């Protein structure tokens, strides 16, 4: 892997063998009164153009913090990145000066958030908030930015865009608001789009529409999409590969159909088993027992061991490495074979 010693802005277009975006051994800590909280603990994943990566985990697993580190929107302090790299087309973003970083943020790597109502500014019209991207980054005139905003609202299929461009966020439904967030994020054709729980706050039917829209936009533009969620059900149709996070670490990396067929980590298996399925009607729904780990007081050894049905003595004393168990697959479980076999059976 090549490292750029002098940071330069990566060019648009293809960049050799480097993935579009590579997170490499990332660590993020938060300073609190009770000491440093290690929210992200050596996370690595990669994203190629046109690919959709789903990052799966419960709240506190570090999935959102990783995304915010990529965007560079963590509040530092209290956050700190003691180690790791975030390479965008080979350039380590963490070593870029702030002004170079802000050339990437929003323009080439964009992000949408969970709750569009609070993520949109309540006192500005949606049109001005979308158009702002062009005005600030492209120097577009107000009138042209307004036109562009209408085009974008059309593109994310907001009915009556021309009439609604001057409405305020609170005048839209939850699904429409999320479309506005998306329109804002894709305004400048970013190469990477990070969607942090984009459908969590929405109704089930609307969830599917938003996922469909995201998948379409990705197909149209060859951008890489990182989909952060705690809900395995949401990503099955859209994602190409999945990274499962637990307690600030990646516990399983897999192509989406592999993991659905047979998960190789007990936590991933637990998540899959807890999805309600039509063919298991009447049976009791599986739930992972226990509570998410306390980041201030992580369990010894494998952080999942207190909740793990496969636990052996070694799990309490020794943290498992991320075993390479296939060409596109990793699992951080001492007993991944047993888990894999159990899944097949």
């Amino acid at each position, binding site marked *: 892997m090549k490292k750029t010693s002098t940071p330069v802005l990566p060019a648009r277009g293809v960049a050799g063998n480097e993935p579009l975006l590579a997170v490499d051994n990332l660590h993020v800590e938060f300073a609190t009164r009770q000491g440093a909280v290690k929210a992200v603990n050596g996370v690595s994943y990669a994203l190629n153009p046109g690919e959709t990566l789903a990052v799966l985990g419960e709240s506190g697993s570090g999935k959102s913090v990783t995304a915010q580190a990529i*965007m560079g*929107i963590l509040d530092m302090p209290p956050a700190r990145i003691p180690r790791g790299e975030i390479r965008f087309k080979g350039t380590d973003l963490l070593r870029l000066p702030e002004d170079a970083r*802000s*050339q*990437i*943020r*929003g*323009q080439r790597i*964009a*992000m949408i*958030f969970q*709750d569009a109502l*609070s*993520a*949109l*500014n*309540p*006192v*500005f019209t949606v049109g001005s908030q979308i158009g*702002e*991207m062009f005005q*600030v*980054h492209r120097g577009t005139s107000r009138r042209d930015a307004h036109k562009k905003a209408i085009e974008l609202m059309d593109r994310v299929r907001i009915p009556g865009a021309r009439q609604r461009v001057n409405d*305020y966020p*609170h005048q839209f439904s939850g699904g429409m608001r999320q479309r506005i*967030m998306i329109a*804002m994020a894709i305004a400048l054709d970013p190469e990477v789009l990070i969607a942090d729980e984009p459908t969590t706050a929405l109704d089930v039917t609307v969830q599917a529409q938003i996922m469909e829209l995201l998948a379409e936009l990705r197909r149209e533009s060859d951008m890489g999409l990182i989909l952060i969620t705690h809900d395995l059900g949401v990503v099955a149709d859209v994602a190409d590969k999945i990274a499962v996070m637990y307690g600030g670490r990646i516990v399983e990396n897999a192509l989406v159909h592999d993991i659905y067929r047979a998960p190789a980590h007990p936590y991933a298996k637990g998540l899959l088993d807890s999805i309600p399925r039509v063919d298991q009607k009447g049976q009791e729904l599986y739930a992972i027992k226990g509570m998410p780990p306390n980041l201030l007081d992580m369990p010894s050894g494998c952080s999942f061991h207190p909740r793990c049905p496969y636990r052996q003595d070694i799990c309490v004393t020794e943290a498992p490495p991320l075993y390479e168990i296939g060409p596109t697959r990793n699992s951080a479980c001492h007993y991944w074979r047993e888990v894999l076999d159990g899944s097949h059976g």
Partner: protein
Amino acid sequence: MGRYIIRRLVQAIPVLLGATLLIYAIVFALPGDPVAALAGEKRLDPHIVDVLREQYHLNDPFLVQYWHYLTGLFRGDFGDTFAGVPVTDIMAGKFQVTINLAATALVMEAVIGAGLGLYAALRHGKAQDSMILGATLVLISVPTLVTGFMLQLLLGVKLKQAGIDLFPVAGVAEGLRSYLLPGFVLAGASIAYLTRLTRTSLMETLRADYIRTAVAKGLPRRRVVGRHALRNALIPLITFLGADLGTLMGGAVITEAIFNLPGIGQQLFTSVYLREQPVVVGIVTVLVLVYILANMVVDLLYAVLDPRIRYE
């Protein structure tokens, strides 16, 4: 919006009625006979006394007197003093002084308070922030009575002795300059409150999700703070400033006394002493009106600043 204004005006009527009734009752209960007070040391001809009492409805029951006053008020007539001078004539000049004073104070409050609060919020947790917070504590705690005399001594007299004559310490002879020092004294605690409010409001706004969005959009910090945060953080400030206009005018009496400003506070004092009941009631009524109108304007401004608020 128009319907909202009408509804607010209708809602204001009971407040106005209640407040004037209350004040009228208090003034009615003031000891001493107003007509006798008019005459001073002399003894009046009983016949003239009777005529005066009749003319000013003084022989009627309290509620009838109040009714006469109220109907006059709705015609824009604040009545006459017992000496026959229209109350509006007496009030006009005095209110001019108090309005000048309160307006000076309000401008100082807005500029200094919002400025300091903004600075403190952006330096949150640093030494400058703590210093500003400490200063607001002192400004809130030291009564007008004390700041007034202290500044009079320090700026008005000592500075003058040092050859710098910036701030007149008494009277209104020097136009706007006469109001600088008393304006600051009157604004004192309000400046501190506004500083704190601005600081809290901006800090809270800066933590909002939409600020994170603005940062994620790659906007420069100037724009994130100056446009996205400030516009939202301003909303409570406007309310505070609007509501404070009435407070400043009504609270000016001590400042006026310290700096010998011939405003409504002084006039109220004189009128209570002279038993000029119509003047006393008139002054307080105008202040109540100012309070009601200022709050109404604030509510309407709210709708302009925050589109989520819609008035039906």
